């Protein structure tokens, strides 16, 4: 795919294009929605709806960017194209942490416990399933299934022990929701800051991602501090996953769909993929959230955005498993 050198000018030009896409999608998502609010006689109501829509757009953007970046990082470092926070069980671990924190401690600490849950899961997956730093595709699938089943059971247990009104809240939150009447602006700012920091950090690590994807010894011999890179990347990816789960619940497959669509378009070079994945992940989830609100306009009820991404992501996952991934590994 690289037919010309990657220069700062080309890099910035591509970045600007991706940011423009995100801004365009975001603008559309603020303007459009379930109801027509463009009536001059009821400006107060219009303003309130616009504020909520702006909140949804910002939430979707930061969560989408965070999950897509985490997916890209896991795929690079585990050298497995199917690695993704949701599939790996990292989102489940974060979810359990968030639920435990909001039920028994304080909702304010939820992102911290989400991060702890995510990080513990990454540690377990890596300790149990990696061989020479690589996660074999089938091992990953099995490990993910088992870890997700475990967290599912733990979350059901916690839910069963909770009061009836909390049960409903937890069940709805677990579906992955963005549009809300209860905005948490400061949490959006925190997740946004983390996602932006992760994007900048990963942009600087992208050269190392490329080399580790080729092989650990190759990377090490080319001067990449592989162990430090792995630690920093796993902690960062866990951090943004935990924070975004605390904000919007476990939203699946964003971290799978975005990196793969962009790999098909841009090739495997992480230097180009990192900024693209951050902006495209944000745009995609903003668009998905807009879709839920437009569906609300048609059917009266907004489906949770996590349901939408899972319905699109499940078939996409099977497609990857059957075609792209199989074709490539068979050559090995």
């Amino acid at each position: 795919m690289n037919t010309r050198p990657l220069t700062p000018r080309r890099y910035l030009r591509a970045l600007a294009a991706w940011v423009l896409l995100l801004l365009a999608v975001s603008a559309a998502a603020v303007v459009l929605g379930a109801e027509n609010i463009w009536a001059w006689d009821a400006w107060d109501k219009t303003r309130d709806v616009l504020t909520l829509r702006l909140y949804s757009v910002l939430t979707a953007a930061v969560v989408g960017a965070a999950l897509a970046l985490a997916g890209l990082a896991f795929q690079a470092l585990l050298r497995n194209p199917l690695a993704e926070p949701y599939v790996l069980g990292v989102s489940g671990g974060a979810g359990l942490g968030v639920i435990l924190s909001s039920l028994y401690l304080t909702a304010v600490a939820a992102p911290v416990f989400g991060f702890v849950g995510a990080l513990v899961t990454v540690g377990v997956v890596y300790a149990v399933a990696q061989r020479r730093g690589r996660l074999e595709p089938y091992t990953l699938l099995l490990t993910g299934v088992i870890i997700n089943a475990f967290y599912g059971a733990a979350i059901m247990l916690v839910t069963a022990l909770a009061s009836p009104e909390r049960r409903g809240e937890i069940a709805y939150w677990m579906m992955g929701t963005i549009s809300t009447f209860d905005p948490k602006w400061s949490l959006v700012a925190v997740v946004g800051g983390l996602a932006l920091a992760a994007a900048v950090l990963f942009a600087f690590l992208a050269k190392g991602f490329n080399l580790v994807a080729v092989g650990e010894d190759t990377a090490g011999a080319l001067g990449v501090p592989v162990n430090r890179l792995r630690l920093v990347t796993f902690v960062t990816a866990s951090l943004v996953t935990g924070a975004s789960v605390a904000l919007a619940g476990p939203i699946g497959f964003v971290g799978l769909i975005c990196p793969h669509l962009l790999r098909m378009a841009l090739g495997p070079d992480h230097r180009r993929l990192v900024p693209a994945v951050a902006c495209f992940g944000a745009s995609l989830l903003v668009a998905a959230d807009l879709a839920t609100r437009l569906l609300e306009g048609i059917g009266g009820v907004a489906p949770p955005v996590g349901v939408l991404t899972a319905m699109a992501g499940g078939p996409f996952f099977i497609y990857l498993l059957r075609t792209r991934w199989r074709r490539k590994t068979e050559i090995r």
Partner: protein
Amino acid sequence: MATENRNPIAGDAYLAAEGLAFAYTPGEPVLRNLTVAVARGRLACVLGPNGCGKTTLLRMLVGLLVPSRGRVRLAGTPLEAYPPGSIARRVAYVPQETLAAVGFTALETVLMGRSPHTGALGFESSGDWHAAREALRRTDTERFAQRSLEDLSGGERQRVIIARALAQEPDVILLDEPTSFLDIRHQHGIYGLLRRLVTEEGKTVVAVSHDLSLAAAYADRLVLIDEGRVVAAGTPDEVIRPEVLSPVYETAVEVRTDEVTGRPYVLPRPPA
């Protein structure tokens, strides 16, 4: 300090392992007090039975593994005294082939060899691209530039990986069994290329090999390792001898001389 950094054992040694010891699991040493030195501008082949520590030695020579005892010196300076990442500008390592099907093209793969020379964000100058193109040319792989690595044959791919090592512009190239999985034409193609890099460009090349005759045909020096120690080191004529090889490989061998090249070659003689 300056005097301490000077190499005490081999005057012309460019890359030297001094008394290396290492064990992956305690009590099962892979290397025991291994000492070997390679002079600049030589092609050296490391030989030895499976599991004798050849790959471990190679990984130590490029700093991927740190010995539990002993040290590696590059140009007289211990590896640990080099700033992080700077060894990669002087030593290139070609691991034993494992293909990661990531989808990088040959050109992208070779450009990765520029990574020790580029900045944090990995922007490439026209100089980097020139070095990559030049490396493709020297390995006769220009026509694969835009082809995906996994679409190439084993021999083509190995040449591209060697091109990546060349793009690093190193003084030393270490290769771990560069010709395993290759047919005889490509085996000789690779060793002929390594030979040219040594004689025409003054590179220092160390290759691990299982093929005694192939190594004897191309190398200036052979190093025979067994059970983590150097058993024999010297010219092919000094190392390729039945009394040296037979005990190490626990196989009777006959050594003959190739009348065309004058180099020795090995015929295994299994018990009847």
